[in-house]
């Protein structure tokens, strides 16, 4: 289980996360739990859209990880101190996989997660 950030775009630990659908899906779960979808959701446009293959801050493994962990702006800055390293690896794998998330896969993922906690305003499943 990684305790540190990737040491470059070709970190040897990457394959265990990026090529493992379970790890990618766990990243998607944390993406939902931590409320990332409130800005980066299905209707996100421009730089907030993470699935458009346009990487404003670089799309390599270490660049995506580093941006989420250290340079993410706004009230939610400083994820390195707030999210354990392994979850950051999983979230990074999920984000880098987003361009491959077809509408059908997204629909299934949304169905899977419909009752799960979403962000800090979540009030419970289907009330």
């Amino acid at each position, binding site marked *: *289980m990684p*305790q540190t950030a990737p040491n470059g775009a070709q970190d040897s630990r990457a394959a265990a996360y990026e090529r493992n659908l379970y790890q990618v899906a766990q990243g998607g779960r944390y993406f939902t*739990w*931590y409320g990332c979808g409130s800005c980066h959701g299905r209707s996100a446009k421009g730089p907030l859209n993470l699935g458009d293959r346009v990487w404003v801050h670089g799309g390599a493994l270490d660049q995506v990880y580093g941006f989420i962990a250290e340079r993410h702006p706004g009230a939610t800055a400083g994820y390195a*101190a*707030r*999210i*354990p390293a*392994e*979850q950051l690896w999983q979230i990074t794998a999920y984000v880098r996989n987003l361009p491959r998330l077809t509408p059908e896969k997204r629909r299934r993922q949304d169905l899977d997660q*419909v*009752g*799960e*906690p*979403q*962000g*800090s*305003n*979540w*009030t*419970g*499943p*289907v*009330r």
Partner: protein
Amino acid sequence: MSGLQSALEPAGEQAAGIHGLFWLMMLVCGAMYLLVLGGVAWTLWRAFRRRRPASEPTIDPPDIGLNRGMLGWAGLIVVGLTVLITASFLVERNIAAARARDALEVRVTGHQWWWRIEYRDPRTGGWIETANELHLPLGRTTRVALGSADVIHSFWVPNIAQKLDVIPGRINLLDLTPTRPGWFRGQCAEFCGVQHAHMAFDVKVDAPEDFERWLAGQAKAAAIPADPVAARGQQVVTGGQCAMCHTIRGTPSTGRAGPDLTHFGSRRSVAAGTLTMSRGAVQGWIAQPQALKPGTMMPPVALSGPDADAASRYLMELQ
């Protein structure tokens, strides 16, 4: 037969009904069982008594007594089953009937693998959240609204009421009317993943005034720690990785994915009945949750020795 988690020692109206039904079924089925055994014994005895040398085949005349006996036996089965069906219909109707209209409203959400529990605040109408420990007022009906965040679970406090499945996308309602104070234990009763067995919760039945006092305490925000070690612990917990998933009201911790920790130290167990509440258990749980409850969604949090000590001290002070 007895204990904190036993349907044979009812401490609630619903469980008492089921308990009565259990003994009625035991009695009826037990009586039928004894009659069958008696019949077998009698038959064997008759066969032995009438044994003759097998040299000449004989044809028994029709046995009128046997025919009558069979008719009577069929009638007995019909009567026995009718009694059981009628009794279970009456008990189930009684359980499903709406009870007191001023029922206490509680929402329970099943998560892999813990229980989110929310009480309707009688003062503000909002919700007071806690986890893995259900408190109930004695003699008053509590209406539990069961929802699931992920998979099918089943909510069961055997001493107080029947079990009810917790279905994703649905809200199921269950009435609990405890009739005896004390501690009981509830358990997920539908296999829901690797840690299904560690998805338990404690149930405390209190006199109504004690319950009101407890609920008022739970409604409060977390206390600000006085001593410096616990204050450091507060920084570690509310400014670090815990805050992403856990809420501690009155602090910057506002995560929703994990159990509410506002009054964590007042609970009896850690990780949904996995460990007994103690500082050692809390510290171990933070450092190596996967070793204690493999598969749990709680990630290991690497803290320095002094920080881990401070964090567990702070969490234990959240009374």
